[in-house]
């Protein structure tokens, strides 16, 4: 056990810190705070990604030959943590850099790598991922969007939902059905679809928070060149799963930094708000709940470090990796509830209200956290996966 950074990791972090200092981050952050609409915020984070790309920090864990920095997964985690600590704007092409790019690197042809990877890193081409459908949520292999081969093109018909960045994406990495007779996992194909193709229709999905992070996308006789298939026709399930498993461990690497920031913010609020005639942070019940949140937050950070160590050394996530999603999503819901209890009536004030503490983040956070145990695999599906693949219990369905 050695939880200090190695000389290489330390140098990596310090290089990044000094680059961040020279990047004019302060200004980027201030401008981001002034952006109100989803479109404005996205445009700003796209410009920021360009800056990060030019600085050589986009795709840190990608191999150098594909424009990345060739860093280890641990260094990638350091990158994500540092960006979160500095409160840098997010990189616009999250899906491209985190999911589609690594999949193309692992399964694509040389021509595909040359064609797509540069645009992902620079942010010139934004990606979304078309997996879920109205009839294929937790049961992802039930994907039923049809792709019929017509000479050298696939003709796609179907309906995708919960597609993040669908409204702005240039490309869509999709899972489609190419064989209706085969067992359901064996008739799927992973294909890259130009969102400007005729027959693609995007509709925003409004969430309970009022925002529209997601879209639903309709495909009507959309023609896609057969050369856009990634991997083998009918081999799409393995393409989709291999990198998803791998990436799940690093995508959450910066979450604990945000959790800690919110925890500190809440404690500060608790110093001025009153409970039974004294500051809320002196109330025994509030202290109990904050103490519990702190413990869980620390445990999440530590388990994440164990999972990273495992993946970094063996390339295979250990049992600790599989519980992370369950842990943080359920933690965040508990934490948001504790925040509400501490803030009292202030907890409900939204960003439109000038009196709202921390620009309405608590009212928003309370609602947004509800999605955490659903998105990217429900808690129930995560428990099924743990039971079956980690504990070796028999398949339940």
């Amino acid at each position: 056990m050695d939880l200090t950074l190695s000389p290489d990791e330390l140098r990596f972090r310090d290089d990044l810190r000094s680059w961040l200092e020279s990047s004019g981050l302060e200004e980027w952050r201030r401008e981001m705070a002034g952006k109100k609409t989803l479109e404005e915020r996205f445009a700003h984070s796209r410009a920021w990604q360009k800056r990060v790309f030019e600085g050589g920090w986009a795709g840190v864990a990608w191999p150098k030959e594909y424009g990345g920095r060739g860093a280890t997964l641990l260094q990638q985690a350091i990158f994500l943590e540092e960006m979160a600590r500095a409160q840098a704007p997010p990189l616009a092409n999250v899906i491209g850099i985190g999911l589609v790019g690594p999949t193309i690197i692992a399964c694509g042809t040389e021509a595909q790598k040359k064609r797509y990877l540069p645009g992902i890193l620079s942010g010139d081409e934004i990606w979304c991922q078309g997996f879920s459908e109205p009839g294929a949520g937790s049961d992802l292999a039930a994907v039923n969007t049809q792709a019929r081969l017509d000479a050298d093109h696939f003709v796609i018909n179907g309906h995708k939902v919960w597609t993040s960045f669908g409204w702005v994406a240039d490309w869509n990495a999709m899972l489609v059905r190419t064989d209706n007779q085969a067992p359901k996992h064996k008739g799927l194909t992973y294909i890259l679809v130009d969102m400007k193709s005729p027959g693609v229709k995007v509709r925003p999905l409004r969430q309970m928070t009022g925002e529209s992070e997601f879209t639903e996308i309709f495909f009507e006789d959309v023609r896609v060149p057969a050369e856009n298939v990634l991997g083998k026709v009918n081999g799409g399930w393995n393409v989709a799963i291999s990198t998803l498993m791998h990436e799940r461990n690093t995508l959450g690497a910066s979450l604990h930094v945000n959790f800690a920031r919110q925890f500190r913010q809440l404690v500060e609020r608790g110093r001025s708000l009153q409970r039974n005639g004294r500051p809320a942070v002196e109330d025994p019940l509030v202290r109990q709940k904050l103490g519990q949140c702190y413990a869980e937050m620390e445990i999440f950070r530590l388990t994440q470090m164990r999972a990273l160590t495992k993946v970094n050394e063996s390339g295979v996530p250990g049992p600790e990796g599989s519980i992370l999603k369950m842990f943080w999503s359920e933690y965040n819901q508990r934490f948001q509830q504790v925040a509400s209890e501490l803030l009292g009536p202030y907890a409900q004030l939204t960003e439109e209200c000038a009196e709202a503490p921390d620009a309405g983040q608590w009212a928003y956070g309370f609602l947004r956290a509800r999605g955490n145990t659903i998105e990217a695999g429900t808690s129930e599906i995560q428990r099924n996966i743990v039971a079956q693949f980690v504990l070796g219990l028999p398949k339940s369905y």
Partner: protein
Amino acid sequence: MRFDLSETQQLLKTSARKFLQQECPMAEVRRIMETQTAYDESMWRQMAGQGWTGILFGEAYGGMGLGMVETAVAMEEMGRALLPGPYLSTVLMAGVALDAAGSREQKKKYLGRICGGQARAGVALQEDDAGWGLESVRLEAVRNGASVKLRGRKQFVMDAGVADFLVVVARLDGDLALAVVEGDGLDVKAAAGLDLTRRLYSVHFNDAAGELLASGPAAEAALRRMLLLATAGLTAEMLGGMQRVMDMTVEYAKTRKQFGKPVGQFQAVQHKCADMLLMVESTRSAAYYAAYALENGLDEAATAVSVAKSYASEAYREVGNHGIQIHGGMGFTWENDVHLYYRRAKATELLFGDAAWHREQIARRVIDQGEAGGSDIR
């Protein structure tokens, strides 16, 4: 950065497991727990032979000089085996207190015997008011030449029935003091508790003669160190216990059939098993980190210990709840082993501060004192 056991730590763990599987199977646990003191002389001698009784003490006193992470790993395996007897009280409590507070001669005299396996010992800390903090210490020590005389009563003293000597926490002129009592003037009464593998006693001190180890700030520092190391070690022991409960339960769920299927095929059962894994692995993260933080003298070591103990206290009990529930009627029988762990879970929850007590310690550090955590900017 590497958060995993090193090769040698892993080796230690494997050999500890092998040793305990051989020397302390459940049949042996049950035999020993039926005895008056839950202590077995030959088992103790064998453990001393492994070096466990001196695991974290200097070679000058016959110890192995290993670190807290190694100690935690060994204790994890002891917890897994539900090893009965006075290891925690002798090594992690009395041993650590002596190591921190004793003079060279005192260490030779007392710690040396612990390392060599010749003596069992305990620490008399808590009193009638059941407080876990040092503010509850009231037992009076009076100077008597070079030594002290002790008068009063201690409660919940672990393994006093087999201890060759006790380290007693007392007040000397109002200050905290530590003294060793060996011999007359003690009235030791068994206090039958839930955990049959680790016995509690109430101890009356009737002007018992004690050898002073330290008083004032030195005694307080030694006590705090003992409490941190013992709590971290205990948390690792709890980890091993809950891991074993989970393993037994998952195994049972794979073989027990109802409605023509293994019960482990039903999601209601699967999800409980997944929750057990979540609690076990979360405890592992916290317990190993607490040991690491102590070994490396990190500023947040005390907070790390409280994080681990507050979490483990509820997790062990809850893993036990799930374990018994999934075992069904069998889980409620005396012959099934899960209840023996469940008893240990409750007893350990109440040792060195329960979950709520440790949450308050966390609040004092991170809220009142503004202590920075691993996720904060440094």
